[in-house]
């Protein structure tokens, strides 16, 4: 089946079987291997990407469902000049990753939440709720929460924010 995805701003024409999962098409056809697959059943969150701005599990969507839609992956986070996204800088500063397998999913879930509502990064309870959807087996979550809080403050202070 012929479909067109807008992946990180670029239109990509693809010919995929209906049974192909979005995450597999991103990794194998688009060669964007930053999207990780852990559990492949919607639990771990490593495969989280944005479809039309909303954080979704790319392991639980068919690529053909996304025909004509906009998909954003972790590769699309950095600026045009290659400068990392404030969340990526904050994850680095706060040591919010060790093995890094879960990191793309946390970043995309956090980006979606902060872009939809900058207040999602303010307050312990809200940040806790935000990381509830993803698994990390290294950090114990505390550095991830600190990183999101730090990035949220930075984003809120940005001109035009």
């Amino acid at each position, binding site marked *: 089946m012929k479909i067109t995805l807008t992946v990180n701003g670029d239109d990509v024409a693809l010919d995929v079987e209906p*049974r192909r999962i979005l995450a597999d098409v991103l990794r194998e056809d688009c060669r964007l291997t930053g999207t990780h697959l852990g559990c*492949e059943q919607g639990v771990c969150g490593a495969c989280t990407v944005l479809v039309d701005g*909303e954080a*979704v599990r790319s392991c*639980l969507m*068919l690529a053909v469902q996304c025909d004509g839609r906009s998909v954003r992956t972790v590769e699309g986070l950095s600026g045009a000049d290659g400068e990392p996204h404030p969340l990526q800088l904050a994850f680095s500063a706060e040591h919010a990753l060790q093995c890094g397998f879960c990191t793309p999913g946390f970043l995309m*879930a956090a980006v979606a939440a902060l872009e939809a509502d900058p207040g999602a990064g303010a307050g312990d309870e809200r940040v806790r709720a*935000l990381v*509830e*959807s993803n698994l990390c087996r290294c950090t114990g979550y505390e550095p991830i929460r600190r990183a999101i809080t730090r990035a949220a403050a930075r984003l809120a202070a940005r001109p035009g924010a």
Partner: protein
Amino acid sequence: MKPVPFDYVAPRTVRQAVEALGDPSREARVLAGGQSLIMEMRLRRATPRLVVDINRVGGLGRLTVSAQGTGGAQETGAHGTGGVLEVGALVRHAAFERPGAVPGPLGRLFALAAAEIAHPPIRARGTMAGSLAWAHPASEWCALAVALDAVLVLDAVDGARAVAARDFFLGPHLTAREARELLTLVRFPLLADGTGVAFAEHRRTCFSFAQVAVAAAVTLRDGVVEDARIGLANCADRPVRARLAERSLIGAEIGPPGARPAAGHPFARAGAVAAERDAGPVPEPYADPDYRRHVAAVLVRRALREAAADAERRPEGVDR
């Protein structure tokens, strides 16, 4: 695993969708949110020949309140106001978390329940109607549907029919829906202003299904229970409305609001009745029937206490 090969259609109208579903030569499945179906297909427990993706069908994403509904609503009783909430097949779980999405006590109850469903990325895709059609015994929406007298509208090539929630659920993943039918709309009678609501759920982790969940809606007059609705999730092979527990509450004096109700309190009694007589839990890993009856008794008592407190915070006419 990867799903087995299948054909895929993405109809634009309900008519096209039910025509695709009506083709008896191919085992078809409806894809709405896909958060259960695609997982089942990955595990190859579901191997449809045809997937009918309804996400591009116009008009199914509507969440509307009408004064009387277009028929089908019933048993308004002391709870109802005559108003009806209509939920289209593509309304996502997350829609009910937005403040004011549904008016009054029904909106508060739905917001509480939606927050217990999986986690935000699942709630961004999964739909209420999909959850009802999937009919998992632990589903929050299924328990609410039977407790609140929802009506489900099923469309087929030869017309539509309305089925009451109490007649819809026949067992785990087993419903009155025929394979050729599409669940297009769910109707809920609105709850009257002044109704107190609560939702209590117990699960092992954020990712787990409910071991037990309880929805409660109560109407009080001068400290006496006038009406009560109790829905139980994962307390049987299908969602349960705890009618015997409800009946035990009617006319009961609940006394002053406060701490945990004592053993003889009407809420504690209703919890015991719900757990011992309304519920019929089946064995499952980590939670045998005795344990789940115990949890159900605790959660029913807790939900009733919270619903009563909610009602007392919002005396009649001061709602919203």
